[in-house]
């Protein structure tokens, strides 16, 4: 490792992780550090603005976006444990298409943004982080990660190298879990059917652990699994990767 330049990485933790999933946030920091990154945390960061943007409130989303652009202006790499929030950063140039000055800044931000697993595999070029996690698991591909970020591979490469982890295939893995931000509440009856079908497929896979790389999906699927009292554990991929011996840090 000595001859490597230490990568300077700015963490974009996402509002959801900051409010509800600090374990995931800490795991992200620790994994990145272990892989040789110097992690900083720009303090102005809040929320990517997706809730407003996807609900049709462009102006309000722009406010959030400007704050983010300012906060990460000096970062070299931005890494976030959410494919969806990373995809939102990539949407910023579109959001400012009528403001050339902001558009330029938005493009700069978008170009240096990576989802957590994508950064490890494609920028750090590491596929084995040395994690150990004995379990039968299946992985939920989140829609924005595969379709907007077009990252279909990185999480699987990392999970394949986790010792003891058996990764089982998930039927209809390409179907959305029904989260969709405000969709989950605005269209609750439809969302409910979607998440139930997702859980049926997870059960059919025989996995006892569901892993995903997006806290939005996890909040939805875990919330429903807990409500139904199903014996399935739900974890963010950072929690799996930040293990050294038998599922412990």
């Amino acid at each position, binding site marked *: 490792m000595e001859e490597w330049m230490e990568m300077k990485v700015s963490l974009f933790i996402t509002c959801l992780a900051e409010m*509800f999933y600090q374990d995931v946030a800490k795991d992200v920091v620790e994994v990145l550090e272990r892989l040789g990154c110097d992690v900083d945390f720009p*303090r102005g960061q809040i929320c990517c603005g997706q809730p407003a943007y996807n609900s049709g409130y462009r102006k309000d989303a722009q406010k959030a976006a400007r704050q983010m652009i300012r906060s990460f202006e000096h970062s070299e790499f931005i890494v976030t444990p959410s494919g969806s929030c990373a995809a939102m950063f990539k949407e910023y140039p579109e959001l400012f298409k009528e403001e050339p000055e902001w558009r330029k800044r938005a493009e700069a931000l978008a170009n240096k943004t990576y989802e957590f697993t994508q950064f490890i595999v494609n920028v750090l070029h590491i596929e084995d982080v040395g994690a150990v996690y004995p379990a039968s698991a299946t992985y939920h591909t989140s829609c924005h990660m595969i379709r907007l970020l077009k990252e279909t591979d990185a999480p699987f490469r990392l999970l394949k190298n986790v010792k003891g982890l058996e990764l089982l295939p998930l039927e*209809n893995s390409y179907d959305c879990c029904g989260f969709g931000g405000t969709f*989950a509440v605005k269209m609750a009856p439809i969302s*409910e059917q979607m998440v139930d079908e997702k859980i049926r497929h997870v059960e059919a896979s025989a996995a006892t652990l569901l892993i995903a790389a997006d806290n939005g999906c996890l909040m939805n699927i*875990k919330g429903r699994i807990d409500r139904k009292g199903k014996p399935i554990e739900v974890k963010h991929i950072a929690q799996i990767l930040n293990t050294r011996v038998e599922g412990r840090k």
Partner: protein
Amino acid sequence: MPMKIGEKPFFGRVDDALEKTFMRTAMASAQDRLRGRKLDATVRDEQIGDWEEWRSAGEEIRRHTLENLDYYLNQLSENFSRKGGHVYFADTAEDATRYIQEVAKKKNAKKVTKAKSMVTEEIGLNEALEEIGCQVFETDLAEYILQIDDHDRPSHIVVPSLHKNKEQIRDTFRDKAGYTGTEEPRELTAFARSQLREVFLEADIGITGCNFAVAESGTISLVTNEGNANMVTTYPDTQISVMGMERLVPTWEELDVMVNLLSRSAVGQKITTYVTNLTPQLEENSVDAPKEFHLVILDAGRSNALGTEFQSALHCIRCAACVNVCPVYRHIGGHAYGSIYQGPIGAVLSPILGGYDEYGELPFASSLCAACSEACPVRIPLHEQLIRHRENYVAQKGKMSEKLAMKAFGIGASTPSLFQGAVKGLPAIMKPLVKDDGISSGPGPMKLWTAVREFPVPEKNNFRSWFKSHKQEGES
């Protein structure tokens, strides 16, 4: 409005659909089947090379055509007329049906046969013809099933009867048409065929839609599997084709690409059983061409999209690939959309054609998973257009409470001190709701979440302070 399905409001229709568990299982397996077939004929078909290149070609052709729509419509119309056909440009659905009624009256038509067409469904043509005393016969199998089942409405743009399984079809045939056979598809089809045989021979007018019109030659191209369209267009002396004003291609070369994209995406076939190309021919020696050939070119709201962010919605070739991957359609089916255009393209197109009063909820009936945009053979950014619709909708009809909430969000998300205050205050605010390490019921909008799922308990500790001390530890 003929495009519309059902009288109930959106959520009423959704509830109705969700109750029909049987229909939903059928929909889900049909969807899996259609999706799989499409993948076999596209990304997994090595013979055709890179599917993404085909999509780019399709996108390019459609964009070019729509950007030069005036020019190509003019060319199409001139070529069609020069060969003896009659062209009518209809601004509205009513204009179109009135024109067709007049033709039918002039011909003193009693019986009309129809090939499958969504655009005639859109303008309510059957009702208009029945009004003036014509008998209308749907000859596409799926449309025939719906017609004899008391004019049931289509639930899918390619397979209009997708919501019915073979047992239901058998029962419909028994109840309405005196069928005595089993639910074997072959037997059911043979029955429908025998019922329709006579009708084909007796029809005075044959009516079709149009998959693509070729501008350079004035040709109407029909992409079908059952062969009924050929019967509809060869027996009667008078033929009428109805097309949406956007459904054309410049030349046969582009037609080739588009037919490939359509057959493969819609039904997973390299090419459909029939691709029927009809050009008016008034020469004496043409034996099977109709003596009179009318082409009705329909606007009916389409030009609303021209020159706007929705223009690319007019690139649609109605293959239903987006419908076949939509997880929302999977659970609520076609009728819940309340429009004959359902699924993602329905949610984009219906408000363009029919307005937000009628179809304003549809753009919100999506989790924005983008499966549609990924599937579309002409790369229409469907999920982005849904967001554009939401923007227009909230600007015109948004609820004050939501507007205020979003304004508060905008302020909170751009003022670090406010956000930090909220993060710190959250555990205390939510504390009364926490029971057994979880939140099972909450007030206001949270109730909609907790009606279905547990809500996560906010963190008591502060991540930023953890990070700070963590960094300090690292340095010391």
